[in-house]
């Protein structure tokens, strides 16, 4: 183990020496480290003065922690450059091949580079924060607590790991720094959005809420490290498929996986869709478990917390709550009718959201979307229980008729997204990432078009034409 760590450190040490001899990395790092604390301090100073004049302190209280977050982030952006330079730059200059030809494990190289990609920008980031706090301490600004600062340092570190691990994933798929820089927008844009979200949490949330951001960033970074590590293979690093868009091969790979050996629609269902569905056994068990937990948690929360809210509610609030709950299960006025097409379109939108959320987050956001939808069922049943309607009766009359089709469709749509995320972060020996993605896309299309859409179509018809009649027949008016 010590020998392994020595190897990691050896790679890191060389990178470090290289960085300190490269003015293109050092200059922006020094400039950002030293200039931003001054700038932010000046802005904070002006802002505090401005808000004090109007007797407001809320924003000012949070301004220093917010500034710490921003100041810490800027030097970290250099980690993206360092990581891209370290991986793709080595590929482009051909220096990676002698390294790969040496008797070191892939992970030695990966972690050596990851370590140094994170370390230097992070040290600069910490220095920048310390510099800023030193300035703050000499003014009449309120210093953040040690607890808040600890959280901010953790979040800053998580940002660095996230960006570098994402940069490595991109680097593995690129053969030139130019191509990698273009792909880097896939890191910068989500991270910028994430920073905005975190800023909102900083101003309007509590310190405790920051934990959520830390956990979310750490999970994403962990998955990206796993993904990078699983594809950090000599084979991929020296492969020749990257950067060239081979549409014919892509089409053939996708079609080969989508159609398989089948000759007819019946054959496709019998062999290909069945094969794809068999692979969903474990993901289905997981999403079923998530459904049970999600349902129970939301139902429990509603039945425990809502009574107090209802007791404080005005008659108008009360009517609104009931109306919202009715609409959540598609229960509108007796003389109103929601078309099957609208229900179908809405459910397609939800399952597509699960897919979109899933592919940008290794299934995490997709599964969360699914969890929210399941949670809604628990919430609605809980609310109806509170207003005196039997949740069992409501479930049997208002959910079960179309839910038999709709809930499995939702589960299949989530299970395939969960599988996609799991496969992406698992080493696929002998397959390039491109091939893995195309095969997964084919599997998703099989499940989505072969199973989910037909189930949702049936569910929509039942929900539009059968469920309301049953509901109005059995529910109290």
């Amino acid at each position, binding site marked *: 183990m010590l*020998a392994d760590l020595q*190897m990691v450190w*050896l790679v890191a040490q*060389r990178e470090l*020496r*290289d960085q300190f*001899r*490269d003015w293109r990395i050092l200059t922006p790092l020094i400039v950002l480290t030293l200039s931003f604390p001054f700038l932010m301090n000046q802005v904070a100073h002006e802002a505090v003065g401005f808000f004090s004049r109007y007797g407001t302190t809320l924003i000012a209280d949070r301004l220093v922690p917010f500034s710490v977050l921003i100041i810490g982030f800027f030097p970290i952006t250099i980690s993206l450059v360092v990581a891209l330079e370290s991986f793709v730059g080595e590929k482009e*200059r*051909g*220096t*990676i*091949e*002698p*390294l*790969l*030809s*040496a*008797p*070191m*494990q892939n992970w030695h190289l990966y972690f050596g580079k990851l370590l140094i990609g994170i370390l230097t920008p992070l040290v600069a980031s910490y220095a920048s924060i310390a510099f800023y706090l030193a300035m703050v301490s000499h003014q009449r600004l309120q210093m953040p607590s040690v607890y808040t600062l600890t959280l901010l340092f953790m979040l800053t570190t998580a940002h660095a790991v996230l960006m570098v691990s994402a940069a490595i994933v991109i680097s593995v798929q690129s053969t030139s720094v130019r191509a990698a820089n273009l792909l880097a927008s896939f890191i910068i844009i989500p991270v910028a959005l994430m920073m905005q979200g975190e800023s909102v949490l900083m101003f309007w949330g509590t310190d405790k809420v920051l934990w959520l951001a830390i956990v979310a960033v750490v999970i994403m970074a962990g998955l990206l490290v796993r993904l990078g590590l699983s594809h950090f293979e*000599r*084979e991929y690093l*020296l*492969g*020749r*498929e990257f950067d060239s868009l*081979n549409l014919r*091969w892509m089409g*053939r790979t996708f079609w080969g996986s989508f159609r398989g050996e089948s000759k007819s629609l019946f054959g496709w269902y019998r062999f290909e869709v069945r094969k794809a569905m068999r692979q969903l056994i474990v993901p289905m068990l997981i999403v079923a478990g998530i459904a049970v937990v999600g349902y129970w948690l939301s139902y429990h929360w509603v039945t425990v917390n809502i009574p107090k809210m209802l007791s404080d509610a005005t008659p108008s609030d009360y009517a609104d709550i009931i109306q919202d709950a009715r609409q959540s299960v598609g229960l509108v006025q007796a003389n109103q009718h929601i078309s099957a097409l609208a229900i179908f379109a809405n459910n397609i939108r939800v399952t597509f959201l699960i897919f979109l959320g899933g592919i940008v987050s290794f299934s995490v956001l997709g599964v969360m979307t699914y969890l929210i939808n399941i949670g809604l069922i628990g919430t609605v049943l809980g609310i109806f229980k509170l207003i005196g309607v039997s949740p069992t009766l409501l479930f049997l009359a208002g959910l079960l008729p179309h839910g038999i089709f709709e809930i499995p469709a939702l589960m299949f749509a989530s299970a395939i997204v969960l599988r996609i995320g799991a496969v992406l972060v698992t080493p696929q020996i*002998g397959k390039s990432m491109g091939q893995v993605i195309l095969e997964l896309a084919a599997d998703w299309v099989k499940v989505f078009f072969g199973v989910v859409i037909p189930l949702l179509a049936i569910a929509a018809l039942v929900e539009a034409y059968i469920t309301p009649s049953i509901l109005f027949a059995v529910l109290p008016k």
Partner: protein
Amino acid sequence: MIETRDLSKQFNDFWAVDGVTISVQPGQILTLLGQNGAGKTTTVRMLTALLKPTRGWARVAGYDVMSQGDRVRASVGVLTEQHGLYMRMTGIEYLDFFGRIYRLSAKARESRSDYLLNYFGLSQAASRRIGEYSKGMRQKLALARALMHEPPVLLLDEPTSAMDPESARLVRDEIARLRSSQRTIVICTHNLAEAEILADKIAIIYRGRILMVGTLNELKQKVLGTAEYEAKFSSAWRGNGFNLPNGVTLIERRDMSLRFSVENPSEANPLLLHSLTDSRAPLVAFQEVPRSLEQVYLKVMADAQAPSAEAVHAG
């Protein structure tokens, strides 16, 4: 030792290497000749366990490239197509870095670095950054890196490219010395003269397939036919009473010279010379008509690219 059977590599739907079978013994040099993109680099990468073969197998220094990649890499010294040097490191730092990767002791690293830098005439530049080196110096340093851990197998891609004649000679001498110390060596090159000097065996590769493999003489015989020899005379000689030994054919008669085609030179040439001197020929010289590797290579490539061969290849 290097041994491969049906070694093949497919990238998507393209076979970069297709059914390569070669064997190189310790103390032998195999030269891989072929156009750019013929599959030389991919073959070398499979022999270094950098790429996994799609089909077939290879053993390098006794280790399987599929299952013992780390051991293969520890036994191989590689000079890559691009020299792959870190421009911000000094020569001595660079060799020390790779010495540490190959887990050499500090003493071994120091002595090997000193020896190699001195041998390749880089001692004076050892403390300078590699970015300041000339092309030839960089190539020599890259070769020094490949030799740093004294590997039993060497895979060298264009070892003398960009070198001045003096340095190229130095490198060739070092390669010859390594051969005599029972190293197994594979060289990829476009330099046919160099291949002719160094190679014990030559393999010509085209579109991922080995078209021909053998010693230089075997290739010449296969491609250009039997060897030709010329006897030169000091005065006009008609050849009266001169008998040709078996396996020798007179192919050209001039006043001052005769040219023969000889099937088995080692057996027939002494008899031929004996017959010439017995017939009192005024012999002043007897030599093989020069036939270069270049002629062999160009003929093989021309045959491979001929429309009929293309059709066979495609089929």
